[in-house]
């Protein structure tokens, strides 16, 4: 009768699993890297940009009620683990950021589509805004392992909010911008990408929506016939994560589309933002 009974094995669904927290390390100021165990078959098949809906409450408590989506920051196929980047912000993330190794988390996923690397792509530009860097780290890991050329540009409020260069593979060119100029370019990340827009054959972005609007304004005049393609990951509040509630829709040229199943990755030219 206790809600804790819901933790029993055999949760009745094929997409949920209990994962054990393996490590919690600080990163990017007040954020953390949270590493959890996951079934090998899952880690194996995971693609960059996919996410998990995590229950962020003590078992038996119904508040906060909804799961929170977190993109995978890094997948370690050898250790069969997943790492998430969590910035404590509101109730769910503050709870997550307080977890300790050995505790278990209730995960639903993997969910959503992914950043595609089309065949013959060789030059990738990645643009990260703040905590939006998470899925691009996994994408850059995979792309670097395939030997592709990567320029990774990140913007943050100040130097503390930047991803440490050591988190990216050595072959990656890493440029940064900060609002206060404490490191790299003073200003927006979108101000230092012009040269690379023409160079790239794919652009990947993850950050707040205003960044996408600026990106569009900066990149569009430099793109010819909408090339290179721009793949963005959108952030919407979610309930089900499975396309059932229609609470997470994104307005696109094809109508209102559930971002949890046919996103979170969209073609910038398709979405109305």
């Amino acid at each position, binding site marked *: 009768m206790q809600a804790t009974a819901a933790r029993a094995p055999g*949760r*009745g669904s094929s997409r949920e699993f209990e994962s054990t927290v393996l490590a919690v390390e600080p990163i990017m100021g007040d954020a953390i890297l949270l590493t959890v165990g996951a079934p090998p078959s899952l880690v194996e098949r995971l693609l960059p940009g996919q996410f998990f809906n995590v*229950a962020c409450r003590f078992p038996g408590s*119904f508040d*906060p*009620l909804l799961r929170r989506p977190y993109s995978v920051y890094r997948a370690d196929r050898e250790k069969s683990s997943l790492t998430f980047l969590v910035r404590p912000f509101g109730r769910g993330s503050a709870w997550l950021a307080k977890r300790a190794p050995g505790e278990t988390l209730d995960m639903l996923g993997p969910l959503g589509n992914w950043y595609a690397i089309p065949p013959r792509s060789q030059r990738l530009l990645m643009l990260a805004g703040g905590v939006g860097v998470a899925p691009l780290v996994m994408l850059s890991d995979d792309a670097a392992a395939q030997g592709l050329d990567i320029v990774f540009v990140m913007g943050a409020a100040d130097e503390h909010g930047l991803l440490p260069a050591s988190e990216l593979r050595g072959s990656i060119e890493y440029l940064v911008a900060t609002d206060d100029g404490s490191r790299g370019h003073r200003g927006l990340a979108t101000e230092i990408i012009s040269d690379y827009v023409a160079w790239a054959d794919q652009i990947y972005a993850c950050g707040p929506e205003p960044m996408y609007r600026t990106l569009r304004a900066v990149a569009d005049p430099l793109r010819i016939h909408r090339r290179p393609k721009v793949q963005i990951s959108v952030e919407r509040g979610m*309930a089900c994560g499975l396309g059932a*509630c229609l*609470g997470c829709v994104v307005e696109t040229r094809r109508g209102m589309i559930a971002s949890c199943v046919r996103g979170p990755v969209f073609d910038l030219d398709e979405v109305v933002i």
Partner: protein
Amino acid sequence: MSAVATPDVSVDLAPRNPRELRLRNPIIAASGCFGYGEEYAGVIDIQRLGAFVSKGITPERRSGNPMPRIVESPAGMLNAIGLQNPGIHGFVKKYPALWELWTVPAIVNISAETVEDYAMMAAILDEQPGLAGIEINVSCPNIARGGYCFGWDPEMSAEVTRAVRDVTTLPLIVKLSPGAADIISVALAVEEAGADAISLINTIVGMAIDVRARKPLLANHTGGVSGPAIKPIAVRMVYQTAAAVRVPVIGMGGIMSLGDALEFFLAGASAVQIGTAIFVDPGLPIRLIDELSRWLDNEGFASLDQIVGIANEGFRLGERHVLTAWEAAGA
């Protein structure tokens, strides 16, 4: 933890209807929380469910409300999806044929702004294969009555029920609105008008304000509250309604565990629907089927019937018992 549990958990939700609405178990996925079934087909064994109810279908295609459409609330959520759906014509092109291939009973939830539109949809559904029944959502504004909600008024709710009853022999569930001041009068009116069963509660109208932006958080301003927060209100309304009517009552509102589902059965529900919990815990409906059988077995009950309404004196006495004055006011 016995492997094989024997109690009879089947239930007929339309005993007055020759077509019956017989479910193998009383666990139903609620409207708007389970899409059209297919969304969960790869996640849980949907064929094991007692039944599922589709997202609400409307006369015309609707693209729904602008975003944001959902926001969390304490132990609950607010939604203002705005009935995004393909419309009755888009719906019948795809789903009846799909559902005909399934063994799980599929119930269609319908919403409209005029009595005629409800009847029009029901007439179309009457001819479709693959449908086990219709659930009428009366928590909709009645355009002819200046937008006053159908479900708040016994007569308006009955009118919709009658109009639908006239055009279809499909089992008919009427889903009540918790906004009615006197839920019992509405329940009695729709029973009289031909409802085979009554389900309740729909979401309760609520709102949240974005303090930083100084405006309502939902683009639609208001939305419906669902989840554990509304459970005590739902249990009370089921308790009141189940004692008042003779048709089966289907209870819902915040069910998150077997204990919650049992509260509804003991209060008088013959079956339960699971809504918001599916988002949070998709495996719950399937677990509930097993846990319910096991609990009945452990407690020595041979069938689900034996527990329906046993916490409810009015229900037991068959007395159309209405709560006493101070009770109903919640003193």
